[in-house]
């Protein structure tokens, strides 16, 4: 049952039926992406590892009662994202450590020029500076490639909120990364927030 060809839903079913390998296989399939999400949102490898361990254990225990109303991956990712968000909320004032450029053991592709690596470091550092409420949707949508709808589901917020938080975060990043370096002062002055708020889609409710 734990063969590579099994679907995620098959693995959950097998897990509920007592297959001791099924859940581990499910985790193996998704762990790299979830690790990236955890590390990029929490910015601390130890915390990311703790959050993932907690999340996977929690999912392991809850999996027997999983109902196929949502996709397994969405369900599992949501548990992971929630574990990360819980930790983000709890630690508020704790300093964070810079992310390593790559995970330990990750081979550095020969084509990686020094300039590319530097750019990545700068982008990662800029991302780290974002407020957490903006960093989480940016990581999910713009880095990890989740759709706005998926991200809204994962974060438990409206799609409009995802879009507006992404917009705020991208605007800040564009400035920090120097893409807006030559903009006139006026372009950097926010317009009346009330006007902008009113103009957003009424999805935020």
């Amino acid at each position, binding site marked *: 049952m734990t063969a590579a060809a099994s679907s995620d839903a098959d693995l959950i079913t097998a897990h509920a039926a007592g297959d001791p390998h099924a859940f581990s296989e499910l985790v193996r399939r998704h762990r790299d992406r979830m690790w990236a999400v955890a590390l990029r949102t929490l910015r601390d490898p130890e915390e990311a590892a703790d959050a993932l361990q907690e999340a996977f254990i929690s999912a392991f225990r809850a999996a027997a009662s999983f109902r196929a109303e949502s996709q397994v991956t969405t369900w599992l990712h949501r548990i992971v994202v929630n574990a990360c968000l819980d930790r983000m909320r709890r630690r508020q004032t704790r300093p964070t450590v810079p992310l390593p450029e790559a*995970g330990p053991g990750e081979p550095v592709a020969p084509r990686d020029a020094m300039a590319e690596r530097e750019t990545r470091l700068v982008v990662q550092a800029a991302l780290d500076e974002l407020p957490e409420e903006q960093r989480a949707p940016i990581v999910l949508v713009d880095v990890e490639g989740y759709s706005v709808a998926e991200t809204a589901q994962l974060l438990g917020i409206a799609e409009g909120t995802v879009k507006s938080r992404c917009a705020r975060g991208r605007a800040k990043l*564009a400035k920090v990364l120097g893409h807006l370096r030559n903009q006139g002062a006026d372009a950097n002055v926010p317009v009346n927030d009330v006007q902008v708020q009113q103009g957003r889609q009424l999805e935020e409710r």
Partner: protein
Amino acid sequence: MTGNARRSGPPWSVDLLADLHAGALDPRTEAELRPLVENDPEAREVLAALDATLEDLHNLPPIPMPRHVAERIDAALAEEARPSAPVIDFARAKARRAKRLGWGAGLLAAAAVAVGIVAVTVPRDNTAGDGGLAQPDKATNTPVTASALPPGSGKLPAVRGQDFGPAVGDVLKAQNYGPLENQDKLADCLRGANITAGKPLGVSPITLDDKPAVMAILPAGAPGAYRIVVVDPKTCGPDNPDGVLANSTIEP
């Protein structure tokens, strides 16, 4: 705010343009603003800057989970997959340890546990009702809480008998050698029981039946296999097999 975009005119704020770029504006405002923005070079520059920012984010490399984290999580899940009560006869295991039968008994117990793990494949929540196995002992199945700990033990994970389950998660998160101080001293203790160990996946002071001890979780060679050891920090050493109080292997 329909009409605000038109009335406000250029230069538009970066935030407003970022909302437009992200599709965060209502359709009517967007329809009004879009043609105006497209005719404004400065606004187009802002949109191009946002596109460049998105490209930078898309180009961040994947971050594979480090091996030690993957092993740690695999070990935690393997422990979770164990039945909630020891499969070996609990009283007999305790008596064995009390008699300090040493390494031979430890190996036997570990083998028994390993066989049990292979035989029992149901998750923790589904263990009841398997007639061929020892029934879960509710007393040993209670999650560790501060109130369950003996006075003066702080928040050390507590283990009763061979029910390591409640402590494993905490130990896996720790690299705290406690009174053993470092990996070398742990290795010395384990050598007393002929156990060769590298860096543990997790190590932490615990209490074993209310007495201070140190638990370590080690890779056991085969993929998905882990060894849980508990040592007495006061007596363990390379010449004392009895310093290893528990030695159990988890196999997938």
